[in-house]
């Protein structure tokens, strides 16, 4: 008997009851014969697992499996789902706008798929409407902790439900639970049979092999993806084409373009670009570092014409020279990011808009703290506790604080409904990030126009990144402006 695998047992009749179980992110089915499995399910769903002597498949195939068993009238002992119907103590959702209603209707046709709507057009309300009418166990997955807590508040406000929180060192799982992608990755295999609906907020975060793999661990038959930008090509390159979106989420069911709503739902906005120069000291060091870096890259390209920047990063593992070059590159970035002149420009912008609340984005935590210390305005970093963040965000909304500065924690979807002015002091070049950041200030407030200032160091790579950002259609009509030089500043 002690001979490894359990012998495959051939059931005398494959019309026995189907025993279906959940096992950390997968489903297990009785030891039916291979012929029976193929006749009933076709190929490619169940795989024989000799380690346990049963058939196994991804948990995300649950709906399919149940459907097949039901249409063929197989008696099923289903021990898989651990979910329940949810009763709301209230439903208080503002009437949906036509485009929101369209999104709701489109998704309800299949109860799967992605809703693409620009930031500020009320994606959250669409999701909450669907949760309200679905009344099923739901897991909401948000990119960062702030947004996780924001979902918690929105659900409490709209549905009177105090949702469970999974993440930020908290582990409270309820029929309605909010979490982050990082936590979902860790826990979804254990909790994959607890939820019938998954809401993926900013669902482009699902890209990446580990995350898309985690999404397979859930039996949820209903899946809703929300995003402002959906470019399957980009997303698929990131995951090396391995994601089958149909398995884990579905296709786009509704898409609202940003120009459809510009000036209607959203405020009119303009983008103003302000170039700043490096100080002499900064400039000298910057040029010196640039020379190191480009010499190295040039030399490596002579050896190997296919040499790319990613290769350098890989080489730092073993090559000291490569390490030094990477360090030089980072210092370069730090110089452009934290140019002294940016703080002066910021001072000017504060003066230019007296009494106007502003939000400032930086490219690094260090710069965010520098701005905070210089102007004594709240600095929203990932280490801030929940209460502190709330104080800052609500304080900004209510006018207690004139401005706040943040690194990436505010990148997506954090509600700041009445803000009209934002400043970017350096950041990444991706269009997605730009769109998300714009979404912060694109909120309509009467007839008032929103402005996004983008402060970039001239003659540096930042200019290139800014150019890349503006390829995004949201940036159309960017104006360039030199802020007046203050008297006394050199």
């Amino acid at each position, binding site marked *: *008997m*002690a*001979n*490894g*695998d*359990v012998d495959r047992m051939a059931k005398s009749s494959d019309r026995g009851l189907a025993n279906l179980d959940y*096992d*950390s*992110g*997968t489903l297990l089915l009785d030891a039916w014969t291979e012929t029976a499995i193929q006749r009933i399910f076709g190929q490619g769903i169940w*795989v*024989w697992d000799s*380690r*346990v*002597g049963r058939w*196994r*498949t*991804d948990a995300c195939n649950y709906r399919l499996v149940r459907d097949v068993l039901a249409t063929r009238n197989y008696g099923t002992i289903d021990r898989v789902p651990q979910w329940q119907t949810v009763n709301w103590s209230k439903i208080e959702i503002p009437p949906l706008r036509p485009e929101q209603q369209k999104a709701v209707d489109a998704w309800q046709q299949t109860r799967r798929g992605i809703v693409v709507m620009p930031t500020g057009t009320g994606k959250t309300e669409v999701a909450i409407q669907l949760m309200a009418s679905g009344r099923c166990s739901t897991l909401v997955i948000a990119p960062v902790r702030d947004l996780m807590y924001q979902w918690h508040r929105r659900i409490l406000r709209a549905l009177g439900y105090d949702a469970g929180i999974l993440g930020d060192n908290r582990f409270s799982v309820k029929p309605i639970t909010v979490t982050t992608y990082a936590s979902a990755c860790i826990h979804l*295999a254990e909790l994959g049979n607890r939820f019938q609906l998954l809401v993926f907020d900013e669902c482009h975060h699902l890209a990446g*092999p*580990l995350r898309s*793999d*985690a999404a397979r*661990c859930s039996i949820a038959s209903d899946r809703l993806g929300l995003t402002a930008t959906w470019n399957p090509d980009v997303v698929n390159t990131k995951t*090396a*084409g391995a994601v089958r979106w149909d398995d884990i989420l579905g296709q786009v069911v509704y898409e609202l373009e940003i120009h459809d709503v510009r000036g209607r739902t959203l405020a009119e906005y303009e983008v103003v670009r302000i170039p700043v120069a490096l100080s002499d000291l900064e400039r000298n060091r910057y040029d010196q570092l640039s020379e190191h870096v480009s010499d190295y890259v040039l030399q490596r390209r002579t050896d190997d014409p*296919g040499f*790319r920047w*990613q*290769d350098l990063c890989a080489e*730092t*593992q*073993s090559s*000291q020279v490569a*390490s030094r070059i*990477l*360090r030089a590159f980072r210092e370069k970035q730090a110089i452009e990011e934290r140019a002294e002149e940016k703080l*002066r420009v910021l*001072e000017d912008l*504060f*003066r230019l808009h007296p009494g106007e609340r502003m939000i400032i984005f930086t490219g690094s935590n260090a710069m965010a703290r520098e701005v905070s*210390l*210089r*102007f*004594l*305005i*709240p600095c929203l*970093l990932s*280490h*801030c*506790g929940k*209460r*502190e963040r709330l*104080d800052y965000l609500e*304080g900004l909304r209510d006018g*207690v*604080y*004139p*401005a706040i500065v943040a690194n990436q924690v505010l990148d997506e979807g954090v509600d700041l409904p009445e803000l009209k002015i934002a400043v970017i002091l350096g950041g990444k070049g991706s269009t997605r990030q730009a769109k998300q950041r714009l979404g912060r200030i694109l909120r309509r407030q009467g007839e008032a126009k929103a402005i996004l200032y983008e402060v970039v160091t001239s003659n540096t790579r930042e200019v290139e990144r800014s150019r890349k950002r503006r390829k995004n259609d949201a940036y159309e009509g960017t104006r360039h402006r030199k802020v007046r030089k203050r008297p*006394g500043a050199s």
Partner: protein
Amino acid sequence: MLTRELAIARFENGLVLPDRLTRIKDQAYVEYAQQLCEVYRNGIGWTRKSLHQAVQRVLEQDPECPVRRIGAFCKLLDEWSQFDRGNPRKTAELRRAVFRRAASFHPLVEVAESILEHAEKATKGTIASELGTEWLQLKEDLFADLIENHRLKTFDEHGSPLELLARYNVAQTQVALLDSVRMVIDATAEWKTILRYAKLAGLMHRILKTETGYRFDLQGPASVLRRTHRYGVAMARFLPGLLSCRGWTMTAFMKRKAARFARPEFDLRLELSDRSGLVSPVQPPEDFDSNVESQFASDWGDESRGGWRLVREGTVLHVGQRAFFPDFLLERSDGESIPLEILGFWTPEYLRSKVETLRLFPQHPILLAIPKSTRVDLEGIAWSPNHRWIEYTNKLEIGPVLALLEEMTKR
């Protein structure tokens, strides 16, 4: 555990070679490790940031030292340390107080150009004195709860310099395993411990008998569906346990993304054995579970008694994901063999679960030694006819065991 961002490895002929510091090749590092421990030992009260800068200065004595190695040593030293996290709530309140006060002076400008404007320096001084301090101090305190500003409280001195290097080597191998999709272990001993650690890490096994012992093929539940490195974390977590065992070789199979190659993923292996020189941070397992066992083994000795030899943990009985490791295997020269399991002490529940396990192997003869007790009626248990038990007081005698063995093998 280190993060992927701190991993250093070379690749050679499909083999992953994690960064490894050896006393011969990297002699200088023994000295550096000494200095690193000194930095932390003398650095009580320093901020994490300044400690890490000091670590960097020490390691930069080696001009070849990669940035990742510096980061990894910082991480390992931090793991041996306790930091004072300050008082986050108080610091948050301080920030709130400062920012709220400053709000009415916004914006703080370098040079006030009109009576409506507020100069930065003066205003900061005013706010600080309102809070009973000075600006320079306030500036220090304002972000004291940041991880990089935490101050070192204690440094655990079990960290001898050589142990630090040993930990580094294990840590680099561990982080390399994060990409593993499968792990195969050939073991000649300590099967029970190896499988116990694997199970603890959440891995599933296949077991194969080999000429010298057993082969454990470790993967996760979904591994039969596709090659996934979902369980790489579990395999990395399993490594310290494995390293505490003797008599094994291990091959981990991994897939890697390689941007420059046409195929997006290609296969790599990481090979290791108990002789690779990696020192486990986990204590080696106890040799014997109980005194009765060790007593019995030493009484029996190495010689053959009545034609039977005693082999410690000589077999693994397994079905599905359940495995049973009898304490001994009794082997006769004609090839006959019977496992012997000795219960040191027992409660009715423990005995019941043992019997439950034995029931998984009804066809297999098993001998069970149970300490005498009047509380449970052993006769009343529904034993499989192949399973026999023997009672003992204080010490298991050889004679009755031999007698029962003969009886069990009589045909």
